């Protein structure tokens, strides 16, 4: 398993750069992870989504919630989510929040 240093702390990541242990994540890591996803600055709207995902993930075995769970839970529309996290919000939110990538069964 590869490791990576984010915000001065070494964490475990998989081949695609997703953190594999959600407990290693800290809020300080989010801006750096976001920059890697092409998001220069995290606004309060970004944080609303990240906070919601972190909170939901504790009930989801560390997995990121689905887009529908995010839109229902935060009141932010799917269209806005795509504006906040361009090109694949589900995956980007998961990465920035230190959670597992949304997966199918195979």
């Amino acid at each position, binding site marked *: 398993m590869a490791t990576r240093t984010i915000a001065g702390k070494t964490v475990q990541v*998989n*081949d695609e750069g997703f953190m594999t242990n959600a407990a290693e994540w800290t809020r300080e890591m989010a801006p750096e992870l976001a920059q890697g996803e092409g998001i220069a600055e995290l606004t309060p709207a970004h944080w609303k989504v990240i906070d919601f995902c972190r909170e939901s993930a504790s009930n*989801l*075995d560390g*997995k990121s919630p*689905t*887009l*529908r*769970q995010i839109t*229902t*839970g935060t009141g932010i529309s*799917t*269209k806005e*989510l*795509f504006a906040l996290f*361009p*090109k*694949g919000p*589900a*995956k980007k939110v998961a990465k920035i929040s230190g959670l597992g*990538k*949304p*997966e*199918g*069964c*195979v």
Partner: protein
Amino acid sequence: MKQLLVLGAGTAGTMVVNKLRPLLDADEWKITIVDQHETHYYQPGFLFIPFGMYSKNDVVKPKRDFIPPGVELIMSPVEVIEPEHNRVRLVKEGRYLNYDFLVIATGARTHPEQTPGLQEHEWNRSIYDFYTIEGALALARHLRTWQGGRLVVNVVENPIKCPVAPLEFLMLADWFFHEQGIRDRVELIYATPLSGAFTKPIASKHLGDILVQKGIQVEPEFLVMEVDPDAKKLVSYDEREVGYDLLVTVPLNMGDELIARSGLGDELNYVPVNKHTFLSPKYANIFALGDAAGVPTSKAGSVAHFAVDCFAENFERYIDGLEMLPTFDGHANCFIESGFGKGLLIDFNYEVEPLPGRYPLPGVGPFTLLQESEMNHWGKMMFRWMYWNILLKGQPLPLPARMSMSGKWRQ
């Protein structure tokens, strides 16, 4: 007399009453099952209908035939569940049914109306689904005379029933069009909201190029916002467009509206329950099984089967005043049709992703895991008989409810 009430006589509900009737003393326990539809559909068979491999008769039987003696079957829609009063109200005559324990097994179904443009004037003309009997039959008629073009399979949003079915559809389509002699005139495209056709690392490694070999293109991370039925294109939230001549959609799946009306559901009307016991965290006498359950399993018959096996034993403990054990491990076991008379098999649970190896089955197997074989195809074809004659009736099968590592290879 204690009352066990089961809502829904589909795969999970039918298995629950068949498993529990012999376990519960008939002098102490009344079991009632409620459903609004007379017909039981073998849903895995819908996949084969568009390609003429199965007909309607292969996938339908009366629900009544599978309800054992000593179980009351009531045909009626359910108006509402009133968990605070331990009762449900039926639509039929406004009748109330009280319960000591309630099992919700009302399933999930497709909602094409949730995506603009899908279920409009081109529905069943150039846009089809194969998750309903009507859709599968209409698509079969269309494919019989289709002259080729761009066929797009689009999953609107996860979770969906039988998550591998869209892939199976594409691989069977590849085979079908070869047989029809028009494969060179057909483009096959898979537009999925996930990051690819395969997302688990080991499955991706083993199966990653199977779609390339079959000439099936993947449009990943495609979250459809709307369909333009006149211009024949899908438009995603990030404004990508995918054109088609023939669209096969897997619409949004949701649990029954009864769940929402009763205030028991999540954002997709699934009932949140403990993923190992199926007990509601809110009501100590309500369970949800099968597709209705809001648990992170695949929505599939095999999962319902293993879940019901675990649940039946656990329920016996529970009514004796013992704690439920966290027995269900998320086990799923799915044949995946890959075309040309071959198939794959995957066997996994909450913790263990699909692994390669051999799946032992006394007298019949082994089946190859994550690898194509003719045996796997025959396993899938044989399964229909097993479903109707053994599985639904709750009779024992030599398939352990909990996943076993025997035969699996860790790399």
